[in-house]
């Protein structure tokens, strides 16, 4: 009888970490994403609040996917935004998508933060290119995670004809910065 209890207890306890390692999904509830393009004469910043992100954590590995409609960016100048959409061929490629994975991952404890290096790829203008992203996670409570990041993407690497003003093209590097609020996905 005693050995039966021990065996049952052992199996139950052994199953605990496996359950803890089960897939844990988080989804963005709000987001702010911006790009900054630099031209010899000035710099331009476009902002979007329509980005979405989902993260799936499985054990010590996390998968992340984020997407944003390129039409949702507002630089404060409708003509310029239209020019950007022309350069990105928004009708053919309406979304910018990032997918990344990180190993050795652990969620930060509530009230603390952690940084991680995502290895992944960015799809812009229908062209996928590898991109590493430094991600900072801040746990605001048991069920609120703030993810913030910034990276630079090359327009030409994604086959984008750089927009120009006064016949001078913007720089190739596009600085992207974002902040997502994530909550557990039901």
């Amino acid at each position: 009888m005693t050995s039966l209890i021990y065996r049952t207890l052992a199996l139950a306890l052994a199953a605990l970490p496996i359950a803890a390692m089960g897939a844990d999904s988080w989804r963005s509830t709000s987001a702010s994403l911006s790009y900054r393009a630099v031209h010899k004469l000035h710099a331009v910043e476009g902002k979007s609040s329509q980005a979405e992100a989902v993260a799936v954590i499985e054990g010590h590995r996390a998968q992340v996917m984020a997407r944003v409609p390129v039409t949702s960016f507002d630089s404060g100048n409708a003509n310029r935004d239209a020019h950007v959409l022309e350069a990105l061929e928004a009708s053919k490629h309406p979304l910018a998508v990032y997918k990344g994975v990180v190993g050795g991952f652990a969620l930060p404890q509530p009230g603390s933060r952690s940084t991680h290096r995502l290895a992944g790829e960015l799809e812009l203008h229908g062209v996928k290119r590898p991109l590493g992203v430094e991600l900072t996670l801040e746990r605001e409570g048991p069920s609120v995670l703030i993810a913030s990041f910034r990276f630079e993407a090359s327009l030409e690497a994604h086959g984008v004809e750089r927009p120009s003003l006064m016949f001078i093209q913007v720089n190739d590097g596009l600085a992207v910065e974002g902040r997502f609020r994530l909550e557990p996905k039901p």
Partner: protein
Amino acid sequence: MIAASLLLASLLQAATPPPEPESPPGEAPAGPLDFDLFAGAPPPETAPVDDAAVSRRRTMLKLHQGLGIGTLGLTGTTVVLGALNVSDLYGDGGSHTGRYLLAHRLAAYTTLAAFASTAALSLLAPEPYQKRAGGVDTATLHKIAVGIASAGMAAQLGLGFVAARRAEAGNPRQLRRIVELHEIAGYTTLTALGLAGAVWIF
């Protein structure tokens, strides 16, 4: 009992794998990226866009930009030739030869044609994207400056024409005043056009 504890400990250890190292920067991802975490959920809707209109708009606005810069240069040339013409015809030290008259007229007509073509390219360019409502942006400031320049162009044309007819008819009545107003309209137009181009920088 001890054996059971050891068994438990070994089971727990076996169930918790050692953490993988994080992927180093710039290296290939640790796993495949063929996942779709949105599970096919549609992205926020975007309005359909007419590709032909997008292409036509880009061509027309590129030409608009080039012609606009050209018009600014032509306006500057016309203003300089106009100032030389006024100085020659009405200035105290002027030689009254009228040697800048034809050059000023030719430059003025060319400027007007370039200005009208530039405006037409902008006004006729299709707008395939939905415009956001409200707010004053750079494009609004550009349009205000171009509106002032258009009024200036019209005033110059009218005043220049009246001044020329009176001068040709030997009618000096208010001629000097009309010429002064024509000059003011010229400088105003040049300034407004310069601002119309400069606002894009901000």
